[in-house]
Every structure is written in structure tokens, then in C-alpha cells.
């Protein structure tokens, strides 16, 4: 059964793959570590790429790491950044409370941390916390949802994000701050689809069966909204309007084609660049010149202004 040649061939292939995946960099430049939740979500991918591009342009070396929303893994990545003697860390963290210790450790080791997209529940540790205003974003998209449904209102369902995620809670609170004041609107069901398109597709199909008079679907992010759009289409229904959140490229395309009513665009690219600029400023002068907490408003995107946006930034 034992075939040394096979094993040798397999090992050689593996080494080749690994070697191909490695990049060379100029080791003399200072390093900026960028840590984001995942790279299979276009939002985090574009965010990380924007930060990396700006850091490279400013003459830094860049490393991008992914913590998969796992606070333990994030801990290890921060340790790795400390060990590699990084000049600064740009972090989209893995939890408002569970990330405090890691940020504190990096700061104590003399590495300034600049938080983007998600905040932590502590002040004075990170050099900056630059986040999109999820509450305001949720309110403007909910207002558009109400406006689009018109004075007769009707029944609607809600798709929630991963219930352990802070932003999922902030968004649903923002939605309900607007929606619960509308006497004609009635939420008949709410399901967590965990930010996933295929899960949202199945759950929406089922909810559409259970409730025959649904007129609207309000979703905690764009991928779930697109799953809901596909479910509405497969159920052969029309006149059900769907809204999303994030402003992903796919969502913008659906808004252009009319299948998605509205979304709210998080200025992820702007925030990522701003964080790198402030890091650069801090490394050169010892001060960012800005308050720690900076909240950047989101933009409502509908068919009227969809051409002004692309890849999580305003282009016009």
C-alpha cells in the first residue's frame, strides 16, 4: 500500500502551491497590519483593499489578516502583529467587548490601533474609532421603506443578521425606531438569516407561504436582501418591495434593475482611507488631530441616485 513516490509528489505539489501564494515585500518599510472579519464578503474585502492601497501609496508595507469574527483568532493575529513589530494596526474587530483586551495589549506594546467599521465599548485605548452610523443608516432606509409602501401600509417581514453581531442589533433597533411609529405597518414575522443569501432565500420563501399579504421585506444587509429578491421572484409574486443595507456592488445592480427598492451605503472605502491617513499622521506627529470616536453618516441609495455610487464609495 505504501508508495513513497506518491507522497513525494504530493509534498512537492503542496510546497509549490505554498510558494506561489507568498508575496515578496520590501522589508525595510514600516509595516501596517490590516485585520478584517473576512474576505469572502465584498464589504470587508473592499474595505481591506482600500486601506492597503492607501498604506502602500503612503510608503508602508502591508499585511492583511482575517479573523472570521472569532475573538480568539483575532487575539492571535494581534500577537502576530506585535511580534512582527508592526508600526500600526487597522482593525475591523471581532466584537465590541471581546476585542478590548487585544486592543489594549497592542497599545501597551507600543502599536497604535485604529478601529474601523465596528467600535469597542472602551475609550482611550484605541487611537481612533471610525465607524459608519448604522443607526442613522437604518433609520433612513426604514423611512424610505415606509414612503415606498405608501399611506395604506400593510404587512411586512424582517430578515435579521447574525443575532450575536452588534451591528445586527443596532440596525434592527434603527428600523423599529421608524417602523413602530407607523400604525398602518404590521411586522408579521422576523427571522435571522445570519447575513447569508441562501439562508435568506429559503426562509423568505417559507415566510411568503405562511403570510399571504406581505407587501415589504426589510433586511439587515444586502446579501440577505438579494436572497429575498430571488425568493420573491421564484414565488411568482410582484409588488413586494425589498430593502437592504451596506450598498454592495451586487445590490446597486439590483437597484438599477428595479428588483431591490433601496439600500444604504456604508462609506467603507472612505473610512478605511481615513483610518490609514490618521495612522500616518499619528506615526509622524504623535497625534491624529481628531477625536477618538468619529461617526460617518451613511447614504440612502435608490434608483434616483444609484449611479453616484460604486464599490462602497460615492464616485460622483
Amino acid at each position, binding site marked *: *500500500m505504501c508508495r513513497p513516490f506518491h507522497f513525494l509528489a504530493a509534498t512537492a505539489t503542496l510546497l509549490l502551491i505554498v510558494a506561489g501564494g507568498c508575496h515578496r515585500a520590501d522589508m525595510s518599510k514600516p509595516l501596517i497590519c490590516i485585520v478584517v472579519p473576512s474576505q469572502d*464578503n465584498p464589504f470587508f474585502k473592499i474595505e481591506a483593499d482600500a486601506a492597503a492601497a492607501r498604506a502602500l501609496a503612503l510608503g508602508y508595507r502591508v499585511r492583511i489578516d482575517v479573523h472570521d469574527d472569532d475573538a480568539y483568532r483575532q487575539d492571535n493575529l494581534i500577537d502576530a502583529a506585535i511580534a512582527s513589530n508592526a508600526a500600526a494596526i487597522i482593525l475591523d474587530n471581532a466584537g465590541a467587548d471581546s476585542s478590548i483586551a487585544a486592543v489594549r495589549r497592542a497599545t501597551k506594546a507600543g502599536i497604535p490601533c485604529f478601529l474601523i467599521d465596528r467600535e469597542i465599548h472602551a475609550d482611550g485605548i484605541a487611537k481612533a474609532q471610525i465607524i459608519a452610523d448604522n443607526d442613522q443608516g437604518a433609520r433612513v432606509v426604514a423611512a424610505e421603506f415606509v414612503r415606498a409602501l405608501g399611506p395604506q401600509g400593510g404587512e411586512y417581514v424582517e430578515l435579521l443578521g447574525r*443575532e450575536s453581531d452588534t451591528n445586527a442589533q443596532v440596525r434592527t433597533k434603527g428600523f423599529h425606531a421608524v417602523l413602530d411609529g407607523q400604525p398602518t405597518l404590521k411586522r408579521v414575522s422576523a427571522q435571522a438569516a445570519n447575513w447569508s443569501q441562501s439562508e435568506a432565500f429559503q426562509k423568505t420563501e417559507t415566510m411568503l407561504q405562511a403570510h399571504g399579504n406581505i407587501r415589504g421585506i426589510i433586511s439587515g444587509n444586502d446579501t440577505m436582501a438579494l436572497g429575498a429578491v430571488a425568493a420573491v421572484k421564484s414565488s411568482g409574486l410582484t409588488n413586494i418591495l425589498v430593502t437592504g443595507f451596506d450598498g454592495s456592488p451586487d445590490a446597486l445592480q439590483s437597484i438599477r434593475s428595479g428588483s431591490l427598492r433601496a439600500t444604504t451605503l456604508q462609506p467603507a472605502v472612505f473610512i478605511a482611507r481615513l483610518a490609514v491617513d490618521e495612522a500616518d499622521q499619528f506615526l509622524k506627529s504623535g497625534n491624529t488631530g481628531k477625536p477618538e470616536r468619529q461617526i460617518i453618516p451613511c447614504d440612502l441609495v435608490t434608483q434616483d441616485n444609484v449611479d453616484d455610487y460604486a464599490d462602497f464609495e460615492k464616485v460622483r
Partner: protein
Amino acid sequence: MTEHLISPGRSDRLATSSVRALLFLLRARAVLVLLLLLILFSALAPSFLTANNLSILSKHVAISAILAIGMTFVVLTGGIDLSVGSVAGLGGMVAGYLLTQGLPFGGSVHYPGVLVAILIALAVCFAVGLLNGWLVAKAGVAPFIATLGTLYIARGAALLLSNGKTFPNLGGVAVRGNTGFTLLGQSFLLGIPLPVWIMLVLFGVVALVAAKTPLGRHVYAVGGNERAARLAGIRVPRVKLVTYLVSSLCAALVGLIIASQLEAAHPATGESFELNAIAAVVLGGTSLMGGRGSVTGSLIGAFVIGVLSDGLVMLGVSEFWQMVIKGTVIVLAVAIDQLQSRLQAKFLPYLLSASPEDAQ
């Protein structure tokens, strides 16, 4: 005891038949649970028992059922395939890549037709199955470890294909001649969704292979006692290889169906699907030790899980409770499975002595 053989007493006959009834109930537990759930949800949710909803329900079930059908052979040989979710994601991404990005060919970009794209996606997943089979059967790596490795490899490959992005608009472009991919997940045949037909055909083929062909017998033999199977002249590595190929191909079909339904291929599609498939197989009474179980059981198991999750969504039960309830059903089912085999072993001599004419 000889009197019993000739004419069992009245009380003995009663006891025998009640033991038989108990054992039958335990053996048919998956069907019973399914019926119970159907009755429960029909009573609680008014639109549950409508033709339209049952059609949508079976479409949802088809996803985990196809994975479970493919996984059954693997589990019957005593193995496990953790890579199916990732392989499903990879299959969808390969098709998505070919349909939206095309292949650079001689300086220009060539867009393959839908059928070619599907075949290439199946071929790529076939290669993953080949790797799984080779690792398990030839290299002697434990199935859990081998398929855990390919789980990561396939997921990484899916992410590399698009650099993490989604391939949208898989409907195709008429000019490129690659429209029609959406038919796979969205079309109907005789009023029943195509994915359900795919599930039924796969079920038929695999059940037939399991019951009527030498390969099916060999799968059970390898799982029952691998050493004995080898001594009996069965080519164990080849049997194992085939089971992993079947599993990967079923997974690829699932990935293609999902991509077709959503008209988009997302690299994270299929995460944790392997757990649903394993749960369906186990609910259906297939032993993780191998050698015992059936494809029919896996299909019923998939229906139990599907009915449960869709029914709970219709009732508006929160995600957290859904997870608790699903876990409880799985654990109970396997506990009853253990109870059944123990009771059967305990009562077997009694049943044999009570009614020799039935115990051939």
C-alpha cells in the same frame, strides 16, 4: 421450552406481539417523527399543508437530501465526508466563473455554454472526490482528517476563483449563448420543481445500486467488517474511492442548484452543510460505525430536518430555539437508535424461541 415451540401460551403470544410492535415502532421512528411533525405543523400553521408550500418545502429538502444521499455510501463504509459543503461552494463558483468570466482562449475570451459549464464544474468536484478517495483508500489517511483537509482546500479554491467576490447575474447573456443556467434550480417538470426531480432520480439510482448490485453489497461488506471483506476478495480501496466520488458529485449538484436558484455564486455557499447532511444520514438510522443503514433512511432524515426548520420558520420561532430543537431531535433519534439495537439483541432469542416459523 419445547412446549412453547409447539404451542405458545396465550400470554406469551401477547407479549411476543407487543415486543414486536415496540421494535417495529422503534425501527420506523424516523417515519413516525416525520408524520408527527407534519400533523403538528398542519394544525398550527394554516398554510402549511398546501400544495404550493409542500412543493417549496421539498425544494428546500432536496438540498440536504441530495447531500445525504451521496454521503450515505461513505458512512456505510465507516467513513465520513466533511468536505461536501465546501465542494458545493466550489461547484457553484466554477460554474459562476465560466458563465460570467469565460475562458481566455487564443487571445479572446470564450464563453462556454451552460451544459459545458456544468460539466466542467462537476469535473472539478469529481477531482476533489478523487483526492478524498485517494487519501482515504490509498494513502490510509483517516476519513475525518482527509476530508477536513479537502474542506479547507475546496473552500480556499472557491475564494481564490473570485478573489472573495460573488459572481452575480448567472442568467447568462444571449449574445454569448450561455443563457439557461437558471432552469436547473428554478424550472418545474409536471408541476414539481426540478431540484426535487434530481433528488428523486438520485435516490432511485443510489437505492437500486445499494440493493441490487455487487457494488452495493460490497459497500455494506466493507463497512461491516473491512478485514473480512478484503479476505473475501473485495477490492476495498476501489469501493471506498467510488463512495467518495459519489459524495462529491452529489455535493457539486447541490452547489449548482443553489447558484441557479440565487442566480449568483457566492464562495461561502455551503458552509456547515456537511453537518446537515450527516444529521440526515444519522436520523435515518445509518450507523456512523458503518455497515448498517439505508438510503431511504437518509431521505426520510433529510425530510425530518427540512420539515422541522421550515415549519418552525412558518410559526415564527426564533433562530435560537430552532437550533435547540433541531439538536434535541438529532440527539433523541440517535439515542433511540441505540435503544433499538440493544432491545433487539435482548429480545432476539426470545422472539426466535417463541415463533420459529418467522425467524428464518
